[in-house]
């Protein structure tokens, strides 16, 4: 008979992690090893049954992509990234916990105020990737910006009221646009499987389309377009509705998916007036966000390390933002706009 394998070798053999020559023959002729293997099987079986309960249950959700760049010239692109993030995250924001199933199919989200959503650049980027994995995003409805001569032309083109305090060397207008995001149950199932979950996707979710609409946007840019010193932005409201499952159902489902940064999901769930609050993602590793009072209007101020600052607020359904290298100038211009 061959020499007795040690306990570790028998254990590895049980897991097919090692080979033992003629093991059954050895066990048939060696009572000590037979007892060892029986004990190992028993302990492994016990551990296996108990440890199964630790298999992670499916959980939470979503967010948006913000590109963190170190270059000073990257801040305008970052601002654009944040705007895209706002659009995406409003999908999630429009999906409160708890009352989801009670929501009517016709419920809609409409931006009337802004709140800060603290995260990291990495979490935001990854959340954007998560969203992209769940279905098809159709951005054909987002038109390219066009140059216009000045404030009056921008006003006529966008339909927005442009105050005198809006000044700039260059004027750009993006007409109103739509993003359609169609959820695909197979893509979601694949995503869940990659996260170790075999939860079935609710039938009503498959093919549901989240429609994000935003009004026209006007940009007034001071300085060169590729490295502006000050940018003023005014936009119509962001709204969201769904075709298929209700907005509440969709939101609740998204918030229950695994793989999304827990802190972000917690903050989204904490927004009580979710149907009207636009969460503004602030990557805390690159910027700080705080609420400030602008002559009676609640605004969010974002300071981007070494690059400048921005102020954004919603007043009478219109979203306005000011961003620039010099925080004092940014605040002064924002105050002038608010005071008309």
């Amino acid at each position, binding site marked *: 008979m061959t020499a007795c394998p040690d306990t570790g070798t028998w254990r590895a053999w049980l897991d097919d992690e090692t080979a033992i020559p003629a093991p059954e023959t050895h066990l048939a002729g060696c009572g000590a090893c037979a007892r060892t293997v029986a004990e190992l099987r028993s302990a492994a079986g016990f551990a296996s049954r108990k440890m199964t309960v630790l298999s992670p249950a499916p959980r939470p959700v979503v967010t948006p992509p913000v590109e963190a760049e170190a270059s000073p010239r990257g801040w305008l692109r970052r601002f654009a990234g944040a705007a895209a993030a706002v659009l995406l995250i409003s999908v999630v924001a429009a999906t409160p916990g708890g009352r989801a199933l009670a929501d009517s199919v016709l419920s809609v989200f409409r931006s009337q105020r802004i709140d800060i959503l603290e995260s990291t650049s990495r979490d935001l980027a990854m959340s954007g990737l998560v969203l992209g994995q769940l279905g098809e995003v159709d951005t054909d409805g987002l038109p390219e910006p066009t140059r216009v001569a000045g404030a009056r032309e921008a006003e006529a083109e966008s339909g927005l009221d442009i105050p005198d305090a809006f000044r700039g060397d260059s004027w750009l207008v993006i007409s109103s646009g739509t993003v359609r995001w169609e959820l695909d149950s197979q893509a979601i199932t694949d995503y869940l499987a990659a996260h170790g979950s075999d939860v079935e996707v609710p039938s009503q979710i498959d093919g549901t389309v989240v429609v994000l609409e935003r009004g026209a946007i006007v940009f007034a840019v001071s300085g060169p377009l590729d490295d502006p010193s000050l940018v003023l932005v005014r936009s119509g409201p962001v709204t969201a509705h769904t075709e298929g499952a209700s907005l509440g159902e969709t939101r609740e489902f998204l918030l229950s998916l695994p*793989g999304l940064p827990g802190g972000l*999901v917690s903050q989204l769930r904490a927004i009580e007036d979710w149907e009207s609050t636009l969460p503004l993602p602030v990557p805390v590793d690159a910027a700080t966000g705080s609420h400030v009072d602008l002559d009676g209007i609640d605004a969010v101020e974002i300071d981007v390390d070494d690059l400048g600052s921005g102020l954004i607020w919603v007043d009478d359904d219109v979203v306005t933002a000011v961003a620039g290298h010099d925080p004092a100038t940014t605040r002064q211009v924002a105050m002038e706009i608010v005071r008309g």
Partner: protein
Amino acid sequence: MNETVGRSIDAVVLEQRPRLVALVARVVDWPDAEDVVQEALLKLDHDPIADRPLSEVTAWLRRVSLNLAFNHRRDLGRWRDRGLRAPVEDVVDGPEAESLRREEREAVRSVLDRMTDRQRNVLVLRYAGHSYAEIAAALEMPVSSVGTTLARAEADFRSKYEEDSK
């Protein structure tokens, strides 16, 4: 050749994160699992291991994430003792079956809490489906020692669990 050459840490993170969260979620509940993994990834940013081949980075992340997860459970216990934070299990309502499952989960985790780092990590990794080679890399031990460590861990686990059930 270094596998991480030409790959940013962010690319590594994107690949690793979902599986890491699934692994850590065996030890702590969501959303804490997400936070624990985030903490491990932040540590990775500042650790020389980030420049090593991907297989080594992966093994490092598994070990550090599990250790952070058990540390987090220890901290939760301290906070709970001071009344600073209720455990997730206490604040989540759910059907009876889920409540029972939570109790079973906590019973298993509390046994793991009292085991050595190596023994509890070998159990979590093995029952999350990792191979002996992956376990050996994560726990910085020879592959030939995994069987012995696992056998001892399983025996110790059963002994402690049955003691708790008395």
